[in-house]
């Protein structure tokens, strides 16, 4: 994907951000100079690809609405009106959206009533991905997703380009975001490395069927059917709908979303590729991993399967397709066998071996609070990571790197107080990792709090950051509520 024939040593030309952009009225952005111009438009088919949803919604509304169907003519006019209006709005928004690369940032001007300028500094870009939603793929178009720490997902989206352009631009941006060394490195062409592993569809399907959510919903559904047909006990079939959804939705999501999940090791770190309709690519830059979560549902444990998710700085919900926002971080492995998981973990965190970490179990009086699950509560630490474990139905193992620890909290509720227990939270940036050492003895909790604080402090001092972007200090703003220091994208109302 990265064949950035990026002119890395391109003369830095100083664009004046206040000068009105000379409109390059050529319809398609010409492939030739992708670098600094006074603002390019996106692909002219963008409004159509973005707006096809309107069409579907309108058609759906017509099919479902009795009143509309009986009055076909009006419906047709209304539909056409909605379509034309939508297309017009889309076209206007396309016309007024321009992007350009300045010396140190990507600048996107948009909006025709409310002009808006968004500046995404290169050094704030944590990861750059090329995504191809289904419709876009039909037209060989792609969007560029720039992840910025602390920003929401839509902050760094630029859609659409032709796929070649998107790949090229991604290369350029990667070079800019990572500095000179990376630029020189990236100048050599990269051959597509062989995949580290491909998750077979059969296992994906089996794993989903055996996951706790699906099994639980399935059991509920069967009970409901038995209850209504055999026992004539009409609980109301409405209850079946969410249950059915609980069965179908994960299967759909896993089998379609993770179809041919492929893990590749590239120069920029591990790269994942997946999806049947929406081809999703994600890169895991080394050193940007904040923590990871290993999930093992009850039955998977018997089969030795587990799932691995990662917290990556700046990536909150990069997993699912368009628009759907979920907090999954980056999926590193949807389902893998023990050896595969160990291999993947060793690549992400060199020197990490879960089996060598001594785990401390929770005291037995926790059974008053968790009759079954207390046996599975544990934490452990070595000189690199802290690991917490919990859950019986679905065992979750959270791993936090010491030098990524944000803050440490101790909490205690009234019942815990009676039992002389406390929870210790190790906070990491938003993501799937959720490291809580639940229900520890008070002395134990005090020790853990102190030890983890010390370990985090030491780790911050000794660990050298491998990437230039990473060491960028997040300067705190001295003015209190103008909390803008950390926000990477600035919205300046352009004059």
């Amino acid at each position, binding site marked *: 994907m990265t064949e950035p024939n990026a002119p890395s040593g391109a003369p830095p030309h100083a664009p004046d951000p206040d000068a009105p952009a000379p409109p390059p009225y050529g319809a398609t952005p010409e492939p030739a100079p992708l670098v600094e111009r006074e603002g390019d438009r996106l692909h002219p088919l963008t409004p159509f690809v973005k707006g096809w949803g309107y069409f579907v919604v309108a058609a759906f509304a017509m099919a479902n609405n009795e009143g509309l169907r009986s009055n076909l003519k009006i419906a047709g006019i209304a539909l056409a009106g909605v379509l034309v209006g939508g297309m017009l709005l889309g076209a206007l928004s396309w016309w007024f959206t321009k992007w350009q690369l300045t010396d140190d940032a990507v600048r996107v001007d948009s909006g025709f009533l409310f002009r808006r300028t968004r500046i995404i500094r290169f050094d704030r870009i944590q990861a750059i991905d090329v995504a191809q939603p289904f419709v876009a793929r039909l037209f060989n178009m792609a969007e560029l997703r720039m992840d910025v720490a602390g920003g929401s997902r839509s902050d760094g989206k630029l859609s659409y380009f032709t796929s070649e352009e998107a790949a090229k631009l991604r290369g350029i941006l990667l070079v800019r975001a990572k500095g000179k060394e990376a630029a020189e490195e990236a100048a050599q062409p990269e051959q597509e490395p062989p995949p580290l592993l491909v998750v077979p569809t059969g296992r994906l399907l089996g794993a989903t069927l055996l996951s706790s959510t699906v099994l639980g919903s399935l059991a509920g559904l069967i009970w409901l059917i038995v209850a209504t047909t055999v026992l004539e006990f009409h609980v109301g079939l409405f209850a079946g709908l969410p249950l059915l959804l609980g069965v179908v939705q994960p299967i759909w999501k896993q089998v379609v979303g993770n179809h041919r999940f492929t893990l590749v090791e590239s120069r920029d770190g591990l790269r994942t590729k997946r999806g049947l309709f929406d081809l999703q690519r994600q890169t895991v830059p080394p050193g940007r991993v904040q923590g990871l979560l290993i999930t093992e549902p009850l039955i998977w444990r018997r089969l030795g399967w587990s799932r691995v998710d990662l917290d990556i700085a700046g990536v909150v919900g990069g997993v699912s397709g368009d628009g759907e926002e979920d907090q999954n971080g980056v999926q590193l492995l949807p389902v893998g066998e023990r050896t595969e998981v160990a291999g993947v973990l060793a690549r992400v965190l060199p020197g990490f071996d879960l089996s060598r970490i001594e785990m401390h179990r929770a005291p037995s009086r926790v059974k008053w609070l968790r009759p079954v699950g207390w046996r599975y509560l544990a934490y452990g630490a070595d000189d690199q990571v802290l690991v917490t474990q919990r859950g019986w139905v679905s065992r979750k193992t959270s791993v936090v790197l010491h030098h990524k620890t944000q803050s440490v909290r101790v909490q205690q509720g009234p019942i815990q107080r009676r039992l002389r227990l406390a929870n210790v939270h190790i906070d990491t940036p938003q993501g799937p990792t959720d490291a809580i050492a639940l229900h520890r003895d008070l002395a134990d909790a005090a020790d853990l709090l102190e030890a983890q604080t010390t370990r985090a*402090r030491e780790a911050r001092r000794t660990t050298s950051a491998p990437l230039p972007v990473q060491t960028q200090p997040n300067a705190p703003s001295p003015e209190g*509520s103008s909390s803008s220091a950390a926000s990477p994208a600035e919205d300046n109302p352009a004059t």
Partner: protein
Amino acid sequence: MDDLFAPSDVSWTPVSPKLAAVRRVTSAIFCGLVAVAGLFAFGLMLSWLYAGLWVLLVAAGFAWSWSLIGRNQRSWKYAEREDELLVSHGIMFRQLVVVPYGRMQFVDVAAGPLERSYGIATVELHTATPATDAKIPGLHPDEASRLRDRLSALGQAQAWGL
């Protein structure tokens, strides 16, 4: 082992008792509104006896909140360690947060109209995770701005990227 939420190796600073005053005023306003609304609702629909009982109930609730607010205010304290800020609070649900200065993304100082009239402010420290709950209410404005400047300076000096 009360030490867990207030380790004794640092010097703790309590927050201003005015915090309790502000919260009592808020509670009084809320209880007053609830009492009046209930008074008329019960009085007009059932009987004024129930209405009177309701007012008594709300009054009892207010008295309870009065003492609870006092205890809660006394539970708030913070300490500045060499590398971390410690904030501890809570009676029923207790919490101690340890935030390294270098993890700080930004600091907020906020004061509502009621807080302003009593001369207190709230300082809140934000890290890259929303789970970090390092908020110190009930600070004298001078102390709040001192803390803000100090936290900013320390945060800058020890800053560490993501």
